[in-house]
């Protein structure tokens, strides 16, 4: 099923053309796949992280509003939003 016979072959990715010249493209292939993985994983994790930030900010806002409501005797201060 796998094209390569050993792990070393898989890493080196050498290919001998019909005219006998050997081309080893491991460095190109692995760097391209490595960069692709980094880009895809970063793009997928960024919104997850932002989600936590948005939820926290909304909870903070709600707590501030609740605190302001319980202190009805003091004049209401203007609330600056922090997100």
């Amino acid at each position: 099923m796998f094209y390569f016979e050993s792990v070393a072959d898989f890493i080196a990715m050498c290919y001998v053309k019909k005219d006998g010249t050997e081309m080893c493209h491991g460095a190109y292939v692995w760097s391209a796949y490595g960069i692709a993985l980094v880009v895809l994983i970063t793009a997928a994790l960024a919104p997850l992280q932002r989600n936590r930030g948005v939820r926290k900010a909304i909870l903070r806002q709600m707590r501030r509003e609740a605190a302001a409501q319980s202190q009805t005797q003091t004049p209401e201060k203007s609330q600056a939003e922090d997100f």
Partner: protein
Amino acid sequence: MANWTWFHRLGSPKWFYEKSGRWLRWLVPLTVLVLITGLVWGLAIAPPDAKQGHSVRIFYIHVPSAMLSLAAFYLMASAGAVGLIWRMKLAFVAMKCSAPIGAALTALALITGSIWGKPTWGTYWEWDAKLTSMLILFFLYLGVMALQEAYSDKQAGAKASAVLALVGTVNIPIIYKAADWWNTLHQPATFKFTEESSIDPSLAWPFWIMIVGFYGFFAVVLFLRMRNEILYSERRTQWVRALVKGE
């Protein structure tokens, strides 16, 4: 009379938030599975090319990311048009959220193409028509992203960047046809929908799997980003507050 209720419902942020949550439950595992299958197949199972050797494996990430970067631009511009014409809130959200994903995929296509260019053409970069128009696409994405933030009024920013996205679509057919119109370095498409493709079927399988995987990836990240935008913009509503407190 056509029934347009689905269209109006699609414009409701709450409806989209609930639906997309359900879609993601099967879309995420499916996309991960398809992407891993495609990556392993392209890296370790597919045979090398007789002329290019193993560098042809870069094809399995380069072409899908390039195709998606073009498709994402169309989607972004169409969403912008829907937002401009029907003033649909969710359309501008979709437009805003697809821009950074499109920019990331364009950058990936440019980088992997550059790495592939070295063993194939002997150079990392050439001011070839396809490469240059692809670089312009990257800057267009950045422009759409920057323009949204350039206005203090969010709605004005969304409108301006929608117009830029629509004007920018003129670049998409240019990229697509660049290799046919200008006979420079980049080869024309090997996959054709209308004629026989000039590629071996053993290479075609992992390619199509990767295309499906990249489309899935785009949809997943787009939904995740849109859901964040919705939470933020609807933060004063009851349903968002109940949702945030409930966890």
